[in-house]
């Protein structure tokens, strides 16, 4: 029982696919979105951060001045005078002079009181898209709509999620051990793309240690056994042929080779957030950026948005993943007064602070070309929908169609707002796609597919997978115009 070691390519070789993913894809009969010809050192990276359960955008991305919208009987009521979360209350009452608006010097964006560090440190990079029509008030539908850019079939997702398409379309699948990493319980979808692009789902960094090494090393089998098993699995047995009509066997074998590669490599070390790392080590730098006490890292990371962001950071800068989808925060579904004034803004703040630290880390960490990873990273924060502009009878807010998202990174023009909601009732307003300014006469109602298409265009990737949604590129979001 000597533990063996196998590289992914060795296993592909054992499977008779030594040429890598391109050859394996032929074997599988499933398409890459594009030929696997990308350069991993210049590949576009993607981080998607889900704020689950529907966020109150008045707290963050689409706020109103409490001094103008502080009347409970008005069409929009900020409710900032009801907030009990201490840090948020401090911003409302002290830092913002009672308005609840956060707008650092030089920042063209007005943020709500749950965004602090992110606005201060990175407003130049941030683009807020407001007044996106989500078309649903159902959690699952909104979530899956934003993930895929295609409106679900009932509750069932339609199409592949954005990060899966991104990984498949950029042509670098064979360069990453886990091309598509999905953490925190986020959902991921792959419809008719190569299984190599499918998301590997892990709850958190702690489980990465269990995924990336044998649970019991004393039970490991030798590499020669694994290679012999690969030949058995790959054999052209009649029953394989009969079962593979739907691609089940091919998919299974692809996933099996990935699993062997994962479990027998040394990747787990990147996610072993141990105490007191050596001075000058990358882990020490990570802790410093993420404000983690080196003596007790679990206190700051375990079960926290910061831990998910650190997981993403390690996966990206160590070349393990090209795309990362995080359920960064599970917000409270803030229908009631025991959540909305307290936990909801606190959780949003924790999420946006973690995003800020992730951006800082990617800006300060250089890739093989000596350039910051951030230079080729695209980031998007989203939720399934927003919250009603008026407080309900239970002291919380219900579901609302007009949502917002936060976008930043490569090819995206920062320090700007696209679109706006109405001051009368927080409803969506059409937008001029060239300027980003509301245009109630000739503008376009924004949809998630428009944002997807724009991000993909900014990264130089196709978006024909959502062509049936008639996506429109929001030119105002692009640096190139």
């Amino acid at each position, binding site marked *: 029982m000597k533990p063996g070691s196998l590289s992914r390519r060795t296993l592909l070789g054992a499977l008779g696919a030594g040429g890598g993913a391109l050859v394996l894809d032929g074997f599988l009969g499933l398409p890459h979105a594009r030929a696997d010809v990308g350069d991993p050192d210049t590949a576009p990276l993607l981080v998607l951060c889900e704020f689950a359960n529907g966020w109150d955008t008045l707290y963050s991305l689409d706020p109103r001045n409490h001094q103008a919208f502080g009347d409970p009987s008005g069409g929009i009521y900020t409710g900032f005078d009801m907030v009990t979360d201490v840090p948020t209350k401090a911003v409302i009452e002290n830092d913002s002079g009672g308005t609840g608006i956060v707008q650092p010097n030089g920042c063209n964006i007005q943020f709500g009181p749950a965004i602090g560090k992110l606005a201060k440190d990175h407003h130049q990079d941030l683009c807020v898209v407001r007044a996106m029509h989500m078309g649903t008030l159902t959690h699952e539908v909104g979530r899956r709509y934003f993930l895929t850019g295609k409106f679900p079939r009932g509750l069932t997702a339609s199409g592949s999620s954005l990060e899966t398409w991104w990984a498949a379309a950029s042509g670098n699948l064979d360069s990453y051990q886990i091309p598509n990493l999905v953490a925190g319980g986020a959902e991921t979808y792959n419809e008719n793309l190569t299984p190599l692009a499918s998301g590997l789902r892990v709850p958190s960094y702690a489980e990465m240690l269990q995924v990336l090494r044998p649970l019991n090393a004393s039970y490991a089998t030798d590499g*020669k056994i694994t290679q012999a098993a690969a030949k058995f699995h790959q054999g*052209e047995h009649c029953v394989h042929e009969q079962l593979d009509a739907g691609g089940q066997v091919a998919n*299974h074998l692809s996933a099996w080779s990935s699993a062997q590669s994962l479990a027998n490599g040394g990747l787990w070390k990147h996610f072993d957030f141990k105490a007191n790392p050596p001075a000058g080590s990358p882990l020490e730098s990570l802790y410093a950026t993420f404000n983690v006490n080196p003596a007790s890292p679990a206190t700051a990371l375990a079960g926290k948005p910061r831990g998910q962001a650190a997981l993403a950071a390690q996966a990206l800068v160590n070349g393990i993943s090209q795309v990362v989808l995080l359920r960064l925060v599970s917000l409270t579904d803030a229908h009631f007064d025991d959540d909305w004034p307290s936990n909801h803004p606190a959780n949003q703040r924790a999420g946006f602070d973690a995003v800020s630290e992730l951006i800082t880390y990617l800006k300060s960490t250089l890739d093989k070309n000596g350039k910051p990873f951030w230079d080729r990273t695209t980031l998007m924060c989203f939720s399934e929908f927003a919250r009603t502009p008026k407080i309900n009878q239970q002291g919380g807010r219900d579901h609302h169609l007009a949502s917002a998202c936060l976008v930043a990174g490569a090819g995206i023009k920062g320090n700007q707002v696209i679109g706006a909601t109405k001051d009368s009732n927080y409803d969506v307003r059409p937008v001029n796609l060239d300027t980003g300014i509301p245009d109630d006469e000739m503008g376009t109602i924004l949809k998630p597919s428009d944002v997807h298409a724009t991000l993909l265009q900014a990264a130089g990737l196709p978006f024909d997978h959502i062509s049936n949604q008639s996506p429109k590129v929001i030119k105002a979001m692009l640096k190139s115009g």
Partner: protein
Amino acid sequence: MSAHRIAIAGLFVLASGCSKSESTGPGNDTTTGTTPEPEAWEHPRVDADSESGAAPGDLGGGPLPPPSRAVRRMRIDTLQAAMTRVAGSDVYGVPIEWKYNGKNGFSDGAFGKALGRPDFQSSTDEGGVSSALYLKFVGDAARDICTQMAKNDQLRTDVTTRSLFPKAPVDGTATETQITDNLRYLVLRFVGLRVAADDSMIPPLRGVYDAGVETAAPGAQISAAAEGWRGVCVALFESPLFHND
């Protein structure tokens, strides 16, 4: 007969896509042309009234109809039950199961959620395809269970009660025929297929067995031959044939 074995048997009926019929579902033996009695560990046949006895096919119902849906990966509950069923019991009669930190590895307290079992709060759907994460943990489960099976079999003096190598001794005296017979037995036990000695599955499985024998660590708890059978056990648990439902 479990659902996935029925599916495989049904698919065998549809063998038009293959040039030759090498493997059969339970009930027929291509080596003798007879219908052998089920092995003792096999699930008893159940008729339409849930009484043990003859299967509908034996009552003149003809061959099973083909499956009406695409083959998919078995669910976690089915996987747990199937692996436990195949593993059998230890020498004390206690079912062998995947253990992690004192818990069943498939339980929600261990890796059930990571494997994708829905909790019907935050998730209601269960994946129908194999993922790398699924197969990584399947590999962990297989290695744990197969090690237990090998260790317990070595303790059994009555070879007929062994679950992993009842047809071949593991003291280095096994003949070629005994090894082949045991491979055929394991294919039947794990994936429900009766295969002939010259079936195309046998040579690569023999390769797995030989690799295990070759790489067995001297002085290990189980013998070199038992390590070979442990390797075959892991390979069969990880085979796509085991996971189709």
